[in-house]
């Protein structure tokens, strides 16, 4: 029983992370029915082939390959470093960025094109002003 406004929620960290009432969370992309281009931010029309109203939602893959990365040693105040800022090409289309975890933050430990899985977990304990928790996604070596 919810006791009104005090009840904090678990919210998705980005709009393309979906938390269904039943079943596992997943990432949702948009694919153009005309040219196949994939988008991960909300939009209506295709930036690739200019088709209108041609984008259909689909479940993004939960695995992919590390396209590129940076090891971040200095960030904005309050952000814990070091961490690996990774760009992953998902199997089935789409590129997303996120933290690569469970890998030493050294160039020696990171291989380009290494296979990774997308995993879902709490957003490092971060809460918004209303006290809501967030569900985020991370990359782990496959």
């Amino acid at each position: 029983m919810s006791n009104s406004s005090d009840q904090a929620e678990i919210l998705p960290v980005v709009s393309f992370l979906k938390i269904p009432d039943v079943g596992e969370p997943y990432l949702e992309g948009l694919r153009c029915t005309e040219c196949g281009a994939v988008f991960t931010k909300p939009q209506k029309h295709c930036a690739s082939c200019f088709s209108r109203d041609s984008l259909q939602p689909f479940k993004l893959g939960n695995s992919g390959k590390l396209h590129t990365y940076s090891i971040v040693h200095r960030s904005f105040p309050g952000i814990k470093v070091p961490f690996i800022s990774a760009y992953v090409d998902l199997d089935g289309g789409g590129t997303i960025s996120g933290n690569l975890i469970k890998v030493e933050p050294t160039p020696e430990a990171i291989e380009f094109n290494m296979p990774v899985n997308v995993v879902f977990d709490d957003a490092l304990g971060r809460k918004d002003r209303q006290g809501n928790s967030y569900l985020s996604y991370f990359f782990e070596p496959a």
Partner: protein
Amino acid sequence: MSDVYVLGIDMIKFGRYPNKTVPQLGAEAVNMALDDAGVTMSDIEGLYCGNFYQASGMVGQRILQEVGQSGIPVVNVANACATGATAFREAWMAVKAGVCDIVLAVGVEQMGKGMLGSTGGKKGISKEGLLGSASMPATFAAIGQEHASKHGTTYEQFAKVSVKNHKNSTMNPKAMYQKEASLDEVMSSEMIAYPNTKLMCSVNVDGAAAAVLVSESKAKELGMTRAVRVAASALASDPYQSRNPTLADINACTRLAAKTAYDMAGISADDLDLVELHDCFATAELVHYENLGLCQEGEAGRLIDEGETELGGRIPVNVSGGLLSKGHPIGATGIANIYEVCTHLRGEAGERQVENARYGLAHVIGLGTSCGIHILEKPL
């Protein structure tokens, strides 16, 4: 359509001027450019002003309050790090179209210290360090690492860019810093975002640069001796790429603008004598060697290893010291890069002069994304 010439161009020494205002800095550069051209504000038919951080602040009009309110049309532009080049290009278009015979372009910026960007919006939670990093050093580091993945480019090769540009800046009295940095110093300075160390990140400084652009008939009337021809002006936004905007694309955008510019100038990269390109981070300089066609695909690392882009090399790049050491006042950078090229074409670059320079290219790119490229030519 008339050819367009740069009749006067100058920049203030880049540095930190906390006691001056943005319009004051812009006015200094305007007056220097007017003097360089041998004209006054009463000759000027339009002003194109580039400034990023006060984009809603009518900076061009406030500059005129400092130098002369003649009632001319003023256009204020903001286009991220391509802001200055965009203002220059708008001025070029006014003359090219035959609407004006003599106009001013000015770029000016006052920067805070420290890293650009923030931890995100006001809604929800910060995504920084949670969904990777949106900081500029990390973004450009990832762009460099993409090149490393494709071509085996090394951390040391990226670092050599900074060594070269810091060395060049010792010959440029208008650079923020005039201090050499050894490879060891560059690689052992604080790691910001691998592979960019602190000395591989551009310097946030205040600055201003301005140019007087004229039609061919006006140039002949006022004297062609030091005039420089604008052989090409190109501006591109980021064409669709599957990873963009998740991974910002500076490559396709630069390539698109470069092709337009070379076609317009009727030359190829082989004809260039010097290049001032957007080395906001050391990693960026190497990817732009290939984007601008200065070498074949995958050869950027070899170019820096073999000294081809050093002063005296096959194609000197960023002899001014670049954004890495000259500094990067966002709205001013585009015109400052054009100033450097013009100074060489005029044979007035002193110790750092590229000998017998006839063609030079000035490039800037701002994330979001906008790329401005100008090719300048010394009239025969």
